[in-house]
């Protein structure tokens, strides 16, 4: 059975991919993120828009296609996310 992922977990997966698993130095394309984060195009578009507006991701225009890189606030958020995921795990909960 597929594991249920919370909205927060999906954001964590997207940010982790843009930090640890980039295609190249320019960033990750939407298609690559869809595959890595295992999420539909319509859903990831809304999430990417939010993450860029919050300053957690940087949108890079690369020869007509958009790529995404994690920003410094994004790295800090991801660190906090990982810490508090562990904290919530102790209570048997997902953040």
């Amino acid at each position: 059975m597929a594991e249920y992922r919370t909205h927060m977990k999906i954001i964590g997966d997207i940010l982790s991919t843009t930090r640890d698993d980039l295609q190249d130095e320019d960033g990750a394309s939407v298609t690559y993120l869809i595959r890595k984060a295992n999420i539909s195009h319509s859903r990831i578009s809304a999430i990417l828009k939010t993450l860029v507006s919050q300053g957690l991701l940087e949108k890079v225009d690369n020869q007509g296609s958009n790529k995404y890189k994690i920003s410094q606030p994004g790295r800090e958020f991801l660190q906090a996310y990982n810490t508090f995921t562990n904290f919530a795990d102790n209570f048997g909960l997902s953040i």
Partner: protein
Amino acid sequence: MEFLLENILNLVGFLVGLAIGIMSYVGFRNTGSPTLFRLTIAFFSISIGFFVIWSGYMVEDFVTKSGTIERWIQTLGIAIQTVGYFFIAFSHSIKSFFPKSSYFRSVGIIPLFLVSSVQLEHIFRSVSFILLVYGAIETMLSYLENRNKGAISVSVGLGLLALGEFLGWYSFVFPDSILYPASMIIKIGGLIALFIPVSKVPLTKIKFDEDFE
């Protein structure tokens, strides 16, 4: 002896609840997670509940000197703690157990208006017991899924708090027995077990983010 144990229990409860509450709040401010928000409410409620009872004992000891804590203060403190235990259980999806019918919901409130404050205390204790047992079982089940060792400690902690609540409630039947002091010692053990895994969470590099919504 009982007075000393009460003070230790309530102070430990206040401090443990406050520490976990603050940690949850920092987590909520940094991630915006609703789970961490519920944990914040839960542990601040538990902390306030213990503080209210501790204040009641202090007022009795230094001001009224009546030899016993005001009953309504004890009931109030236990009620606030019950709210905290509810939010822990609620985080484990306890909402699925709510009565679906509005008739049952309305009738469910009536007993609260029909009983004296002494009986209310026992109602709150028994509700706390159920919520704590539920939380302990759910946390243990999550350990079986994720194998996170911290979950064992939290589960044991909630289980000991439940046992303490049960013995505290049952001591009503045998008022001068060892049951009540035993319940307090067990609850202190439960609070310590609850705090052990949380104290290991590294917070050194987490900064409190003012701007994140």
